[in-house]
C-alpha cells in the first residue's frame, strides 16, 4: 500500500463522513421516524432503548414521509425490507459449533476469505444457503505491480475514482490497486489446485488500459471460462482447495441472525439447517459476511436504487440477507442511489457490445448516440416498455466498414454461434441466451429482433440519409462512426441488459470491518464483496478495467480472511 495515503487520520475521511450523515442505519431511520427523539444507543437485539424509541415512533400521529417505506415495530421502526430479528432462545438451538472465523456466503469473496483465513492458521466455517458455492462472470482483474509504473498505479486509481464520480472511498480503491495482483494470482493458483482450468490472461485482456495518463501498466487477469464454464465453477474448485486446507462448508444453511452481546460485539451467527433447526456458529475472531447484493429483494431495491425497477435480474436469491444482518447489528447502508451493473454479453459477441452500430429501441426507433457504451445503455431503457431491450443493426459490409472501430469484430461464421435460428453447434456461449439474427430484408430482421417492421424500416432509411450527409444531425455521432445499413443480409443483435449486480453496500473501514452510526468499528463483524461499501459511487459500474468487480471480491476476501485470522 502506498505509504503516502496511509496516515492515520483521527477524523473520518470525507466518504465515511458522508455515509454517516446520509446513509441508513437503525439510528438514522429511528431518528427520522420518531422526529429525532430516538438517537439513543440501540445496539443489541434486545436493547431497552430501542424498544422505547420504537414505541414512540409507533404513536406518532403524523410519522412523516419515511412512514411510506416502513412501519414502527416493538423493537424500533423498520423499513419493510428490514424485518426485526426475533430473539432466538438457547433452548431453540439444536447445536453449537465454535470456530475462529465464520464466513457467511460461498461466493467470489466468501470462498477466498475462508481459504485465506485457513492458510493463516484459523479454524474456519463457511455457511452457505445454496447447496454449493456460487458466483457469476468470468474475468477478475488485478494490478501487476512488478510490471506497472508507480505513477501508472496512481493514475489508474484516479481514473477509477473518476469513474465513480468521485463518490467512492479512495482508500479502498488504492487498497485494491496495491494488493489485487497478489490476490488474483493466489486465486488462480488455488483454484487450479482444486481442478479449475482457470488461466491468467495477464495484460492481454486489458488492452484499452495499458497506459494511463501515459504511464505503463501491467495486469493479472483471471479467466474462468469460456462459457458455459464460469466463476461459479471456479469457486466450487476453490472450495475444494479450501476443504483440503481444513475449511468446513455447511451448505443449505441460511444465516438468520447474528449473535451480538450487549456491548455490540458480534460473537457468531445462527443459521437454519435443512431440517429447519437452528445451529449456532460461534466465531472467536470474527464473522465475515460475504452474502452478495440484494437485487432480488424488490422492496430494498426499489428503495435504494429505483432506476432498476423495470429491469430484469440475472441472479437468483440475492435477497439482501446480509444487509439485514448487518443493519440490525448497527451497520450503515450507503446513501440511496446505489451503483448498478447491467449488461448482456450473451445475446451476441461481448467484443462487439460497445461498437457504435445503429442502435434501436424495442420498437425499432433510434434513441441514442451509439457511442454510449452498453454498460450505460440501461439509463435510456429504464421504462417498462423497453425494460433493457435494444438492438444493434448492421449490414453485410460490417467486417470492412467497422474494421477500425474499437472492439473486435466477429466474422459471419462466428456470429452463427449466437444465432438461435442457426442449426449449427453453439460453442463458447450460453445456448439458451443467444439472440443474434440475420435476414434478407429490414422488415424480416425487425420481426426477428421483435421490433416493429415499419418503424425499423423508417429508422434505417433516416439513418442512411444521415450517413449519406456525413453528419448525424439527429444525435451528433462522429462522422467516422457513421456507416450505412444498405446491403443484405442485415444483422441484428437483440441485447437485453439485465442487472448483474448492485455494487454498493454497507460502511466499512480498510480492514473491511463494519462501522456503526458513530463511525466506530463493530467488533467481530466484517463485510466483503458486494455487501461491502465504498468501492464505487457512480451511477454505473465502470468497465475501465475488465473484471474489476470479481477482482475486488477476490482481493478483499483474501485480505480480510488474513486480517481476521491474525486477530
Amino acid at each position, binding site marked *: 500500500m502506498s505509504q503516502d495515503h496511509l496516515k492515520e487520520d483521527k477524523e473520518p475521511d470525507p466518504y465515511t463522513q458522508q455515509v454517516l450523515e446520509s446513509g441508513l442505519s437503525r439510528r438514522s431511520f429511528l431518528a427520522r421516524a420518531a422526529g429525532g427523539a430516538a438517537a439513543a444507543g440501540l445496539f443489541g437485539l434486545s436493547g431497552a432503548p430501542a424498544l422505547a424509541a420504537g414505541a414512540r415512533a409507533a404513536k406518532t400521529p403524523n410519522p412523516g414521509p419515511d412512514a411510506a417505506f416502513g412501519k414502527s415495530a416493538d423493537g424500533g421502526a423498520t423499513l419493510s425490507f428490514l424485518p426485526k430479528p426475533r430473539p432466538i432462545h438457547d433452548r431453540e438451538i439444536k447445536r453449537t459449533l465454535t470456530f475462529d472465523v465464520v464466513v457467511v456466503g460461498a461466493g467470489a469473496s466468501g470462498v477466498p476469505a475462508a481459504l485465506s483465513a485457513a492458510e493463516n492458521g484459523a479454524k474456519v466455517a463457511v455457511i452457505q444457503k445454496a*447447496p454449493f458455492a456460487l458466483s457469476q462472470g468470468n474475468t477478475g482483474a488485478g494490478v501487476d505491480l512488478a510490471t506497472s509504473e508507480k505513477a501508472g498505479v496512481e493514475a489508474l486509481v484516479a481514473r477509477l475514482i473518476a469513474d465513480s464520480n468521485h463518490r467512492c472511498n479512495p482508500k479502498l480503491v488504492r487498497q485494491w490497486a496495491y494488493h489485487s495482483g497478489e490476490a488474483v494470482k493466489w486465486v488462480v493458483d488455488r483454484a487450479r489446485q482444486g481442478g479449475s482450468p482457470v488461466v491468467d490472461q495477464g495484460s492481454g485482456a486489458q488492452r484499452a488500459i495499458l497506459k494511463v495518463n501515459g504511464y505503463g501498466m501491467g495486469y493479472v487477469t483471471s479467466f474462468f471460462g469460456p462459457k458455459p464454464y464460469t466463476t461459479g465453477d471456479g469457486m466450487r474448485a476453490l472450495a475444494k482447495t479450501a476443504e483440503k486446507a481444513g475449511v468446513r462448508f455447511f451448505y443449505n444453511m441460511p444465516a438468520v441472525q447474528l449473535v451480538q452481546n450487549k456491548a455490540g460485539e458480534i460473537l457468531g451467527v445462527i443459521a437454519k439447517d435443512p431440517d429447519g433447526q437452528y445451529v449456532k456458529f460461534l466465531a472467536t475472531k470474527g464473522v465475515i459476511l460475504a452474502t452478495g447484493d440484494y437485487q432480488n429483494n424488490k422492496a430494498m431495491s426499489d428503495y435504494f436504487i429505483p432506476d432498476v425497477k423495470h429491469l430484469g435480474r440475472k441472479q437468483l436469491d440475492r435477497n439482501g440477507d446480509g444487509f439485514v444482518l448487518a443493519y440490525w447489528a448497527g451497520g450503515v447502508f450507503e446513501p440511496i442511489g446505489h451503483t448498478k451493473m447491467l449488461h448482456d454479453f450473451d445475446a451476441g459477441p461481448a467484443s462487439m457490445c460497445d461498437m457504435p452500430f445503429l442502435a434501436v429501441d424495442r420498437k425499432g426507433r433510434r434513441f441514442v448516440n451509439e457511442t454510449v457504451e452498453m454498460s450505460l445503455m440501461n439509463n435510456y431503457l429504464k421504462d417498462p416498455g423497453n425494460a433493457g431491450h435494444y438492438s444493434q443493426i448492421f449490414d453485410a459490409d460490417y467486417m470492412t466498414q467497422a474494421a477500425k472501430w474499437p472492439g473486435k469484430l466477429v466474422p459471419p461464421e462466428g456470429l452463427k454461434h449466437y444465432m438461435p435460428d442457426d442449426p449449427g453447434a453453439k460453442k463458447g456461449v450460453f445456448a439458451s*441466451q443467444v439472440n443474434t439474427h440475420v435476414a434478407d430484408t429490414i422488415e424480416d430482421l425487425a420481426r426477428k429482433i421483435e421490433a416493429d417492421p415499419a418503424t425499423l424500416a423508417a429508422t434505417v432509411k433516416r439513418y442512411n440519409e444521415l450517413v449519406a450527409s456525413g453528419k448525424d444531425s439527429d444525435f451528433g455521432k462522429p462522422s467516422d462512426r457513421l456507416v450505412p445499413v444498405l446491403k443484405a443480409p442485415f444483422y441484428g443483435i437483440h441485447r437485453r441488459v439485465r442487472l448483474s449486480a448492485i455494487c454498493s453496500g454497507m460502511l466499512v473501514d480498510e480492514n473491511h470491518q463494519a462501522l456503526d452510526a458513530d463511525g466506530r468499528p463493530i467488533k467481530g463483524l466484517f463485510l466483503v464483496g458486494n455487501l461491502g461499501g465504498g468501492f464505487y459511487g457512480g451511477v454505473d459500474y465502470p468497465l475501465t478495467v475488465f473484471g474489476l468487480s470479481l477482482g475486488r471480491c477476490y482481493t478483499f476476501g483474501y485480505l480480510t480472511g488474513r486480517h481476521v485470522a491474525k486477530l
Partner: protein
Amino acid sequence: MNRITARQWAAAPLAALLVLMGAASAAAAAPQGKADRMSKHADKGITCAQCHGKTGKKAVVPKKQCLTCHGETKDLAARTADVKPNNPHENRHLGTEADCNRCHHEHAASENLCLPCHAFNFQVP
C-alpha cells in the same frame, strides 16, 4: 403500498414466492374439507391438512412436506434426467435443492422459473 401482480414479480423469482405464500396462506385458512377450486391435490382427494397441517396457521408448505409424498430430490432429479434441453431438477443455480414452490403452484398456475433467462420451454405441471 401498491399491490404488485405476479407478472411484475417475474423478474425477482424469490419475491414471486412471497406472493405465493400469500396464496398458500389463503388456502390454509380455508375451511377443512372444502376443496379449493385451484387445488390439484384436492381434486385427488387430498385434504388441506395433509399438506398444511392441522394448526390452522397461515404458512407456506415447506419443501420437506412435498418430499414426504414425492420422494427425495435426487430421485426426482433422476426421473427427469432426460428432459431437454436441461434437467429442471438438477441445475447450475440450485443443484437438486430448488424449492418446489418456486415453479409448482398448488393454488395458482404453475410457472417456469427458467424462462425469464433461458429458452427452456418446459410445461410445468
